[in-house]
Every structure is written in C-alpha cells, then in structure tokens.
C-alpha cells in the first residue's frame, strides 16, 4: 500500500518514540537553534567538540515525527565522528537515513536537523542551495497533460 507505510517506516517511528541523544549539554562548545516557522518544528543542538571530533551531541525541540526522527538519527550518526566526515553529510544522506521520499513541505521537516547541524558547527548562515534543486525536479515531475500528478521521485541517492 502507498502513503503511510512509506512515510512512517518502523525506523522513523522508533526514533520518534525513543529518540537517541535527546536532551541538552551542560557546557556546550557550540549550541544552535533553528525552526521551520511554517510548521512550528524547532530543533536545538548542543555540541562538545574535542580534537576535531564531535565528542557529544544532544538535541532538543519539538515538531513532527519526521523532523524529530531525523534529528535523532543524525545525532546518533555523528557522535564520535571527525568533523571532516560530518562536514560531508548531505541532504541525500539524511534522506537515505530516513529511507523515504518526502514531498516539498515535509522535505523541510526532514532537513531541519541537518540545517541546524551545519549552521551550528560551521556557522553557515543557511543551508546552501540544494533544497531548490529538489523543487525544480519536483516541478519537472508534474504531468500537466493528465489528471494524475506523477510521483515526484527523487533520484541520485548515494
């Protein structure tokens, strides 16, 4: 069946119901908070960084299952990893972790944690550009000649 089994795969519900690395750090080296004002999703990430590695990371905030599960998965992945490696994490990596396809609205939920992570650790003012490419793909995937919109499938997942 379509829809929900895809959107709420077991791993997403598991991370949503039992989030990893949830909480705050007492003395974070870096702390960053971001939000999707359109949905009310909020994520804060606290980092302790030692010897070029993410020694500890915690997230807090509130929002939909996709935004919170993505934060949990991302934190679990990056704790203990060298910054160089974390720097390479892309939007496709997050989508792969989630294992689902997201429409344009929920894509912002799915990528909020990555945006918070990048801005927090690297001080990037905003997530560079990739989101827009997805929207262009989505537009191309709409079949204006028929009554049924084609599925906006995203390709090129690594």
């Amino acid at each position, binding site marked *: 069946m*379509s829809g929900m089994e895809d959107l709420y795969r077991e791993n997403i519900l598991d991370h949503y119901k039992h989030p990893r690395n949830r909480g705050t750090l007492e003395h974070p080296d870096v702390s960053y908070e971001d939000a999707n004002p359109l949905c009310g999703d*909020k994520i804060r990430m606290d980092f302790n960084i030692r010897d070029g590695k993410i020694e500890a990371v915690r997230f807090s905030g*509130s929002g*939909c299952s996709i935004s919170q599960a993505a934060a949990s998965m991302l934190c679990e992945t990056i704790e203990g990893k060298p910054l160089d490696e974390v720097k390479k994490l892309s939007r496709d990596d997050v989508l792969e972790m989630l294992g689902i396809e997201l429409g344009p609205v929920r894509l912002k939920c799915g990528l909020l944690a990555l945006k918070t992570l990048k801005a927090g650790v690297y001080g990037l003012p905003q997530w560079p550009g990739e989101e827009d490419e997805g929207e262009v793909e989505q537009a191309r995937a709409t079949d204006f000649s028929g009554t049924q919109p084609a599925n906006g499938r995203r390709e090129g997942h690594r």
Partner: protein
Amino acid sequence: MGESAAAAKLSRPSRASLAFDPGEVRQQFPIFRAPRPKPLAYLDSAATSQKPDPVLEAMARYYAEYNANIHRGIYDIAERATAAYEDARRRVAHLVGASSPREIVFTRNSTEALNLVAHAWGRRFLEVGDAIVLTEMEHHSNLVPWQLLAQEKQVELRFIPVTGSGELALETLPELLADGRAKLVSVVHISNVLGTVNPIAEIARTVHAAGALLAVDASQSVPHCPVDVKQLDCDFMAFTSHKMLGPTGIGALYGRRRLLEAMPPFLGGGEMIREVKLTESKWNDLPWKFEAGTMPIAEAIGLGAAVDYLEGLGMAEVFAHDRALAGYAMERLAEVPDLVMLGPPADRRGGVVAFTLGEIHPHDVATVLDDEGVCIRAGHHCAMPLHAKLGVPASARASFHCYSLEEEVDTLVRGLHRARKVFAR
C-alpha cells in the same frame, strides 16, 4: 438576508432545514466523480473550495467560443467577452448588496484587495501618528499589508484582543478608538482558524461613531453565508473567488463609491486610464481605474457562474449546512481522546473546526489522514499571531462547504483514532 437574520440562524444549527441534498450537489463537482482508490474526503474548503461543472463549463466556453480581450475590440466576440466580464461584476455586486457594480473592483484575491486599500487609500489619507486597528485573529493577509503601510507612514497598529474562547474582546474597541487617531479598523468577518463569526454591524457602529472607516476581510463569509454590505455597514470588504466555488486568480474589493472615487489608482497601466500623455494621465472611471492591464477574464466569468450556483443553492441554506456539519464534527471529535478543539462553541461559529491531538504534530495527523483519503489543513493556517496567542505552535483544521458530507467527518474521526495508535509513545 442580512446580519440580523444570519445571527438568528446562528442560535440553533440544525440539519433539518436543509433545502438541498449535499450528496446530489457533490455529483456536480467533477473532482468527486473521478475514480480513486479511496473516496476523497475533502475537508479543506477554507483553504480553497472545489469547483462545480457550471463554473468549469463557463470558463471553457469563453475560451472556446468568444475568447477576446475586453473593453477594446469592436467586433462581436470582444463585445460578448466584455458583456460576460461586466455581467460577472453585476452578479458579484448583487450577491453582496452593493449599491452599484462600480463599487466592485476585481482583484487577484482578498490579499490583493486589502493591499489595494492599504496602498491607494492608506498612502493618500493616513498621516504620521495615525493608527490602524486590527485584531489578534487576523489572517496574514489582513496583517502584513498594514504592517508594510505602518512602517512606511509611521502609523501605529493597535489590536483588539482575542479571548480564551476565541472571540473578540470588543469591550476594548471604544478605548482603542478613544484618542481619535485611529482612521481605519480592519477586521475578519469569520475566522479561518476558529470559525468565530464576528458581529460586523455592531463593530461598524462603534467604528463610525469614532469617525473611522471599517474594512472587512470576508474571505470566509461571502463564500458561505448571506453578506450584505449595507446591513454590515462596512466601508471596504475583501473576498476571493477560489473559496466560493470559483477559479483562482480573481477576487474582489467592495468599496463605498465616494471612497473609491477619492482614492488614487493602485497599479498603473492599460485600461485604468482615460487619456495618456507622455508625462501624465487622466484616470478611468470606477471601477476600471483600479483594474490595470488585461484582467483574468475567464476567471471573472467563472466567478460569475459560481455566484449563480451559490445563489441557486441559497446562501442561507449553504450556511445552515456548513454550520450543522461543524456541529456534527464537534460532537464526533469530542469522542477522540486527547483532542482539543479551538474556538467558540458550535452555536457561535461557521463551518470550520480546528483542533490539536495530544502531542502529535498536526503534520503527522494530516499524513495519516491523507492515507485515508482525508484532506485537512495542518499548520498555522496563515494566522501565526493567533496560534501564538492560543499557545499552540500549529493546529489541524477541518472545514466544510455545500458538498461536504457527514460520512467525511466519520472518515476523519476514524483516521484520528488511527493516528493516535500509530504515534502512541
């Protein structure tokens, strides 16, 4: 029927008085006839309504039979197009009880209609130190244009507060007007989130007694209930076609003639002029002074057909249907554990029910419902300040129109029980 009669209807929502069968009405909407894996339960009519055959046919007929620009050509099909466009304006004027079609300016939507007032009236007539009074329950379309104007003109914005039950604290209005600085009050007629029906005629008395003007955002009222600008006694009123069974891309501003006459144009270009020289121009008569460039002709014609369709059902009957369904939905939603409804009781609201479901984010609720074929709105519904006031980041919203059925509400309630199971922690 005017506000007093509408208010009388407000006291007792009843399904017994229905003059039309929503199941039959539904068959005239192609979107509900299209085969689907699960029947469409469309509960997002406050965002946009579905479109019946006569509207789509009227637009297709224009393009197929007499597509031509209006107010210019002197050949047959251009004259037919002009007549159809102006006929649509007359129907809209009749629907809202305007004194003349000249008081109806076609715009792109309600947002543009309110921006027109802010630009053409606000820039000309407001001075530094004046004030504009709004409410805490406004849609962004009745907030942001005034914020832009306030910054530009150094005008103060004041707000009528919203009470805990989601109604306007109108006892504050005389105070907000007391210093005589407020020149305009702009208020939503029916809240797109809470469904609250605001007493516009009563507000108009207070506003006019203080020498100010009253603008009304009627985006959720003109499509659903009898509205008469004379009985409401408002000075401006904005509404939009796509929420009233018509196409997107067209809306209207009602304005009192003497006010519209005194206002400079909004946009400059073709059609809005009488005479153009290289460095100056004379403006066209009302309402064309405010309709620059080629307007959405097919959409105006579609809106005219939508007005016909709604009047055929009867606006009072449409409102009775919507409100009865909202009452039924509130009864059924009360059965769902952890569900909290926003806004006033059923006897004081239109066909809108917004709610939260425990800790489950409205996006997640909407996604589970989508899987059941149920379309609801999830988010802040373009009313972020209202959600802040209510202390919720977002909400889910079900809203109805003439084609909505009790069965759709039943499907909604089943979906909500399922959402609770999926997200039980």
